[in-house]
């Protein structure tokens, strides 16, 4: 077990290192940086001023040096300064994290609590109209762009309540908190719920075909016992993996949903920083997202190994 953990940790570090290199190189592959944008906006380009600014921002050094400056800074806790606002990057990023975290948590909760039961029902009643309907619904859930769902929700709230939910970091009433957090979370979680439902269904179907289920039925166990006690416990394993993978997909959904609902979280911040070519923010944000995704997968791997002894001792 220990060897397994160590190996996974080493893999994690290699992956993170690779991601940092890729991001760093990608952002600098195209000629033109923040200095060009700033000077374009000013309208007047004096090469000496430009060179000075570049030197000040550290952009005139060779790429490898810039890369190690960044990585060294990360380990020291120095995340650089935003080119746009000139404040420390950490100061820009940190307050936005809890907002996105709340949304993501709610969305995952929504997706698991809707997706898993519906998947089980769909699998247990395979072939019936109920199964068919649920499958079509889940497929349409996967086909809807989440930003369009968000826009439709805005339209609905305008026609129902007469106003759009405006973000307020300290909601005073429960209804306000619901409108601000739960509604966008549902918009994001709808897609995840559909995915979870599909995976749970196919996983349950695989398990229900197994011989030991037939044995349990032959021994006289009730349908409920067969479905939940025997089948679901085993079917839940791939679902856990998928929920871990979905943590990654969630970011994509959050990016667009935060833009639609105008929520100041890190996902929307990433898009803004990209538009401005604000490298320090983009680099650190992407690394942060990568760390979260990789770490989530790591935890899921560990969970998987903890639940299924075959993974621990086999490999």
């Amino acid at each position, binding site marked *: 077990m220990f060897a397994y953990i160590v190996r996974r940790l080493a*893999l994690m570090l*290699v*992956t993170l290192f*690779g*991601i940092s290199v*890729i*991001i760093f190189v*990608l*952002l600098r*592959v*195209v000629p033109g940086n923040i200095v060009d944008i700033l000077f374009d906006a000013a309208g007047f380009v004096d090469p000496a001023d430009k060179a000075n600014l570049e030197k000040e921002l550290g952009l005139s050094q060779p790429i490898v040096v810039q890369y190690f400056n960044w990585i060294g800074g990360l380990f020291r806790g120095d995340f650089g300064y935003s080119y746009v606002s000139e404040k420390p990057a950490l100061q820009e990023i940190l307050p936005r994290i809890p907002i996105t975290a709340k949304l993501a948590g709610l969305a995952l909760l929504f997706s698991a609590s809707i997706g898993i039961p519906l998947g089980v029902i769909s699998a247990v009643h395979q072939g019936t109209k109920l199964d068919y309907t649920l499958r*079509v619904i889940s*497929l*349409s859930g*996967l*086909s*809807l*762009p989440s*930003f*369009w769902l968000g*826009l*439709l929700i*805005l*339209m609905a709230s*305008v026609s129902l309540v007469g106003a*759009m939910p405006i973000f307020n970091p300290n909601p005073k009433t429960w209804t306000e908190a619901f409108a601000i957090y739960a509604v966008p979370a549902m918009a994001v979680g709808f897609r995840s719920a559909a995915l979870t439902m*599909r*995976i749970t*269904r*196919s*996983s349950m*179907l*695989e398990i229900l075909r197994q011989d030991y289920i037939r044995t349990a039925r032959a021994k006289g166990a009730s349908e409920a016992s067969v479905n939940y006690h025997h089948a679901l416990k085993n079917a839940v394993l*791939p679902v856990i993996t998928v929920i871990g993978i979905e943590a*990654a*997909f969630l*970011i*994509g959904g959050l*990016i*667009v949903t935060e*833009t*639609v609902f*105008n929520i100041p979280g890190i996902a929307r911040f*990433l*898009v803004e920083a*990209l*538009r401005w*070519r604000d490298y320090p923010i*983009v680099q650190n944000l*992407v690394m942060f*997202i*990568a760390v979260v*995704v*990789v770490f989530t*997968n790591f935890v899921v791997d560990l969970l998987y190994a903890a639940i299924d002894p075959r993974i621990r001792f086999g490999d």
Partner: protein
Amino acid sequence: MAVINYDSELRRAGAHATQGWRRLAFLAQRYVLGTFGLVIMVLFVWTALSADLISRYDPLTVDSANRLAPPSAAHWLGTDSFGRDVWARIIHGARISLAVGIGSTALGASIGVIVGLISGYLSGWVDLVFQRITDILQSLPLLVLALVMTAALGPSLHNVIIAIAIPLIPTVSRVIRANTLALREQPFVEAAKSIGMSETRIAIRHVLPNTLAPLIVLATAQLGSTILTEASLSFLGLGIPEPYPSWGRMLSESAAEYVRTAPWLVIFPGVAISLAVFGTNLFGDALRDILDPRQRG
């Protein structure tokens, strides 16, 4: 299609004829949803190809007198904030979405197949390096990677295609690699080697055709995903640039401002995207059930 034996399955299911049109008709009747999906896809392609014929207006012509007109006999789906006909823009947007969807799926799939084949066939350190790179690329969410790429490469049609194709490569190469590893152990590969066939020839003539079934299934599934990603990129303003009409960008231009005053701007592009992706998903699901049930879920 040489791997799956249809005839016995069809006979078992009670089909009376197992050749040609009868077989297709039987499949269509058995997989109703999939046929429906195929019909939607064909409609989509036909719309994209005959865009100039069925749209009455030019999608780019600005007509300030008619801004924000609701749907009417003159403009079937209304006009947008520049007075451009929405129906024309949606029809021409189908062309763009199709181009980007098929282009990026084809690009990503072909590179993925090559990488997966090489990785699975050669093993050793080549495999290790490729696997680590695919791990790294897969650790970033699709949209984030595509976003950074379009921001890095600049907004243009071919950059968007490249940016969406690259995150596809790890997924495709994973599946192809798994298949290659399994197929490599088969007796027919050993037989081919024993008569002196070169490794490359074996890979291309024997292993590759047998990985086609899961590849087709995967490609169809990814097509829906690429269309959605392109829509998301354009919605965020970092996708298809100005002159080309894009469904995603139509939604961003009409975002929260027009929700109250011009709901037709919000509804129709979204319906177009959802329908297109729905069709590909339905068809992809049915295709997977037919060709490669192992990939379920």
